[in-house]
């Protein structure tokens, strides 16, 4: 059969082409221990994003933010006049793919730093990036990435998940439980707390230990965790199981789509609890998806919401309009702003390292650790890194949705509030 021959020939050509392309990729030789800059006038940076996987509901917006921030940086002075060449890949939230893409960044694209994404892949890559001395600025704010003794090259421009979760629970305890008339008759007892999250996901489960520790510290009664998938379309069984416990407050540790589903089911089944949402579940899409069920929901915002009237936001919005004009403005989210925050601090560190003539892993890390109360605007609290602590900030902003809008409820300074516990909380 003729078409079989054609098909066979095509397959053979494809396999050969792929093999040649793959074999030619690395340029041969042993793997370099430290990534050098590609060429004069150009600095290579990798970006690992989730555009098709379980967290793509928030990952796409973040990827656009990285793209736009880099374009803006290149048009506005770059890194001491050098431009950033961005290598951006989707890894579908799959750890093995993240590992090979990282190695592509390191050995083929010769990047000096990586802007990463998820907790699972960032944790899995952590030993390798430490070995390679590769600065890795992640969208994962997992507490386990903040101890330089264990993860010296992991960095991010936000409070870590554990600190944020502690802050959110404390804010609810102080502002709602203690003050709200709904709980006046119950205040002599213990508030009941329960967590909804995907147990198998390192992102979702990252702050749970700290959160429960804080709940115990504040005297909460803790119910059994409810396992809710990141891709959940129905959470009725979990809500019904939680209802038996009669929780006063529920923690939602997943991303927006899953959180919206849980909020709607909680309202439909009259769970009657307040809700606290982790940072990647709390964005502009939440009130749109959950509607009335999102009313009164509290959550963590590590940066300003997209388009908020705040320092530097006009640049973010103008860049979004300029570089991605076909993406409607009303679909842009806070994750764009988070991407800008990470990219801008990386820019600052690279600029300082370059000035010092050390544009390599060690130089960039040292530059990060020099930054003290660094203010990038965008609603990000001042950032400080040190050689012994990579928790860039202890300040957490807790918002509440009212009339479909996000209102700042409280800014918690966890470092100041729990000064004696703060050193112990590093690294988880």
């Amino acid at each position: 059969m003729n078409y079989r021959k054609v098909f066979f020939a095509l397959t053979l050509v494809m396999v050969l082409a792929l093999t040649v392309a793959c074999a030619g990729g690395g340029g041969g030789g042993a793997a370099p221990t430290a990534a050098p800059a590609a060429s004069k006038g150009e600095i290579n940076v990798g970006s690992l994003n989730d555009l098709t996987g379980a967290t793509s509901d928030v990952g796409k917006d973040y990827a656009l933010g990285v793209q736009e921030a880099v374009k803006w940086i290149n048009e506005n002075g770059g890194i001491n006049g050098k431009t950033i060449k961005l290598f951006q890949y989707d890894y579908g939230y799959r750890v093995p793919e993240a590992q090979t893409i990282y190695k592509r960044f390191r050995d083929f694209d010769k990047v000096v730093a990586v802007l990463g994404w998820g907790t699972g892949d960032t944790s899995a890559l952590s030993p390798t990036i430490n070995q390679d001395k590769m600065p890795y600025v992640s969208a994962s704010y997992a507490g386990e990435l903040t101890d330089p003794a264990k993860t010296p090259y992991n960095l991010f421009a936000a409070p870590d998940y554990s600190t944020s979760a502690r802050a959110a629970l404390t804010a609810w305890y102080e502002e709602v439980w203690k003050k709200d008339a709904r709980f006046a008759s119950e205040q002599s007892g213990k508030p009941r707390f329960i967590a909804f999250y995907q147990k198998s996901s390192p992102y979702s489960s990252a702050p749970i230990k700290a959160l429960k520790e804080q709940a115990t510290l504040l005297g909460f009664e803790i119910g059994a965790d409810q396992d809710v998938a990141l891709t959940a379309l129905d959470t009725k069984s979990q809500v019904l199981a939680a209802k038996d416990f009669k929780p006063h407050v529920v923690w939602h540790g997943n991303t927006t789509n899953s959180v919206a589903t849980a909020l709607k089911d909680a309202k439909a089944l009259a769970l009657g609890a307040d809700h606290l949402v982790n940072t990647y579940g709390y964005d502009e899409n939440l009130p749109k998806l959950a509607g009335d069920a999102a009313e009164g929901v509290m959550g963590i915002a590590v940066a300003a919401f997209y388009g908020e009237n705040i320092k530097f936001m006009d640049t973010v919005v103008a860049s979004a309009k300029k570089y991605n004009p076909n993406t409607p403005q009303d679909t842009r989210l806070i994750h764009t702003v988070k991407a800008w925050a990470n990219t801008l601090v990386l820019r600052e560190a690279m600029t300082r390292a370059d000035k010092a003539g050390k544009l390599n892993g060690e130089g960039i890390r040292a530059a990060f650790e020099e930054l003290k109360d660094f203010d990038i605007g965008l609603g990000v609290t001042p950032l400080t890194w040190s050689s012994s602590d990579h928790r860039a900030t202890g300040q957490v902003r807790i918002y509440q949705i009212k009339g479909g809008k996000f209102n700042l409820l409280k800014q918690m300074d966890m470092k100041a509030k729990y000064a004696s516990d703060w050193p112990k909380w590093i690294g988880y």
Partner: protein
Amino acid sequence: MSTMRLPSGTYHENYTQDHAWWQTRFVWIRMIALFAILFIVFPYFAGGYELSVANRIGYTILCALGVQLLIGFAGQVTLGHIAFVAIGAYTSALFTLRVNEATPILKDLGLTYPISVILAMLVAGLWSMLFGLPSARVKGFYLIMTTMAAQFITVDFIITHYISRVGYRGVSFSLPPGTIRFGPWDIRTDLEQYFLMLILVILGILFVGNLMRTRIGRAWIAIRDNDIAAEVLGVNVVRYKLLAFFVAGALAGAAGSYANAVSFTVSPEQFGFGESLWLVGVVLIGGIGSNYGTVFGAIFLTLLTEMVQPTLKFILPDLALKTSYVKDMIFGLAIIVFLLLEPKGLAYRLQRLKDYVHLWPFSY
């Protein structure tokens, strides 16, 4: 008698010759060249990226060998194989972490990890056999459903809720470099992972290949082709089916142990249902009922998905991110195309090519 088609003029005079793995001088030269490439040339020239892609291919082969054994050789369709890989990974990780802590002597001698691999194979094999029990009563579509249950019960329930929480925080166990040692050999770099992969893959292929030449292999093939006829001929169908599940599970256990050496971490997230489907895809595209098929399928699909993004980026630099779904789409597309146009897979095509060369110029 050997089923291999030999070049004209090649005759065997005894059983040893007839059953040899490599039967002609040309095959010997070819295989020595292949081993030289795998052990010397490729690792010498390849950078970390190429090695890590090779490691992914090797991991896929290790996982898919068991799927091939079940589907291709024993005729037992499985859609939950990654669950046994997960069992292997967790058994190996828990054993390595615990024993390294408790008996540093074993760690210093580099024996913890090798022992954990054997243990992982055993535990995963037994676990797989447990989920193979329904094969005594059901087959076809119904067996698919029971193997799917293995995925959900093992990964989504037992591992996520219990095993992943044993003694350590969160769901991901960290196995930092230095934890995994194979004798004096510290598995740290891509190159060390590559050699470990190569050894495991070669042993796995030799093991399955040899097994298929024994009474057991023939019994599996008999069951695959017609289980009633096999039973009539005196084959203990249930026993051999369970043995197939055990061996497939043990191979998955080895794959899971190897995954730890590459990832430095293990979490249930790595063993989703999609991975089980992926392994079936590898076997379908590579060719059912052939070890070559497992290898070709793994190479083809891994390279295909690995190169889609760079190729798209090269062709459409501004649209690469917006077309990232193509990577996932292409897996489904490849399966459809192969099932329609080349249902016997890449291995069959290679066999045809070899036959053509061997019989040339009298191919009729």
